[in-house]
């Protein structure tokens, strides 16, 4: 089982989840975070930590967000691990709650 980051993280990327994750299983893209399903230990801590309410237990994923399971799995293989909390994206509060953000998702691995 695993937890899954869904669309409301896109363009916000608060990273509070990273601070509470005991196993450092978050991976970072330019405007989204994902959870590596093989590393997640199901502690549930990130769900409450996320100011955008974007993280779900796999079993509680709403029907219209189920595809994020695969997105998390795929992107956690190509993105870099993030272990420290950082500032959210500049317009995080503006984007929080905006519908249909998936089209803004930047999948390319950020350069480092």
């Amino acid at each position, binding site marked *: 089982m695993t937890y899954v980051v869904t669309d409301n993280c896109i363009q916000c990327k608060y990273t509070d989840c990273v601070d509470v994750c005991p196993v450092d299983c978050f991976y970072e893209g330019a405007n989204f975070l994902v959870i590596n399903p093989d*590393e997640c230990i199901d*502690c*549930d801590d990130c769900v409450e930590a996320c100011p955008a309410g974007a993280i779900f237990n796999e*079993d509680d994923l709403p029907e219209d967000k189920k595809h994020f399971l695969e997105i998390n799995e795929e992107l956690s293989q190509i993105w870099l691990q993030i272990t420290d909390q950082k500032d959210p994206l500049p317009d995080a509060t503006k984007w929080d709650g905006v519908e249909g953000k998936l089209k803004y998702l930047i999948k390319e691995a950020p350069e480092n």
Partner: protein
Amino acid sequence: MTPKEKYSPSEKEAAFLATVQNGKYDRDIITGLKKFMAGTVPQDMQGFYSQDELDAVKALDGTKRDVQARMPVKITRHYFEQAKNSLAIQTLVKASPKETYDLDGAEDPGKQMTYSPVEGLIHKYELGLIYVASTCSAHCRFCYREELIAKKEITRADGTVAAKGLAQIKDIVDYITEHNRIVAENGGRHPETNRERLREILMSGGDPMVLGNKNIAQWLAALAQAGIENIRIGTKEMAFHPKRFDETFFAMLDTFHNVYPRVNLRMMVHFNHPDEVLLKGPDGEFIDDPQGGLVWHPDALAAVQAFGNRAWINLDNQSPIIAGINDDPEALRILQREMRRNGIENHYFFCGRDIVGHKAFNVPIERAWQILNESQQGLSGVEAHARLSITHYKGKTEVAAVTNEPVPGVKGGENGVVVFKLLRGAADASNRAKVTIVGRNPEAIWFSGYDDRVIVDEAELYSMYDIPAISAVAAE
């Protein structure tokens, strides 16, 4: 973002941390019962709960008797494999409606929060306990940290209500440094608690072994740097997923040992029943190893032996005695023998605490003593080191003896007595080895079962609650 002052490791720590690699672990955890109910667990797990069992638990969802809300349900693939052939392990790990038949119990057993000067730290005895993770790879139904794992809100000493938080490295290092400074300035004892320097920290949770190596290494280095000489890791991972103790983990430990050669590691392992580590033959019996002892699961044995090869690390087992799981002298005898043979000291057996739902798990105190005593008959002296302990608010207490004979001339001793001995004063070190004697009550599952039959109370286990000894009552 809330700006939080982070701990900054010294150069020595940073150099060590730069060498640490995280491993990858395939625990194949199933959390919750939804997948069992939906039939989407792997084929071979589908019969693990019967339909009746699932229906009975589901019927309580959302009610105050919600079993899954009391304690989240979780199992690893490895533990499932061991559970397949063991009713004891199934009882340990499977959710049951029995857990919430009686919700009596303390929201914060042992009032741990009153011993918590810093979030995530319990300073009792000469030991500091820190919560570093709020989950384990699988969950024991009888867990006495259910309030932490299930994130229940606890009333603090100052009246505020909040879920228990995890320890942060900086807070803990600051506390240790300050405590040890005060002790040093006062001739080696804390002026208020009589405690010595903090030399030992127990990393607990949850299970620290769910953390990655890097995260564990940060704690080890920070604690060593703060002057801690003995670091304990309390873990059940050797039962739940022994492959967690892999090359990357031992490489981290070996490097740590090179950098901090005088710091000792004490692995406090948690095996409740020999079925957790031993293999069984087609007849359902343990298998004799022609070279001695019984045959272990190779992954568990490999983990234990890897520790055994490192003389700076000790292994100690402690386990509660729980109804339907290990209230069985024969099982405990085999457990103690196999632990000791393989380099694991038998430290404590515990009476269950008064957690919410404890009536489903606890064995009467006198029965637990008898079970342990019977299990140790026929063990050699070194195999029988374990004592039966029950945790009073005052401190860790041994159930030292239960007499079968009446004690003539002693009021309350007509049916025999139970002798409690305070092993360690939680708040005040000078309470050590004080004794309380009570008249027997074979039904008692907690100290309160003896409230009306206290004979001698030198340890003040009862007088602290204004419960008098019978002689004092008679004299009035």
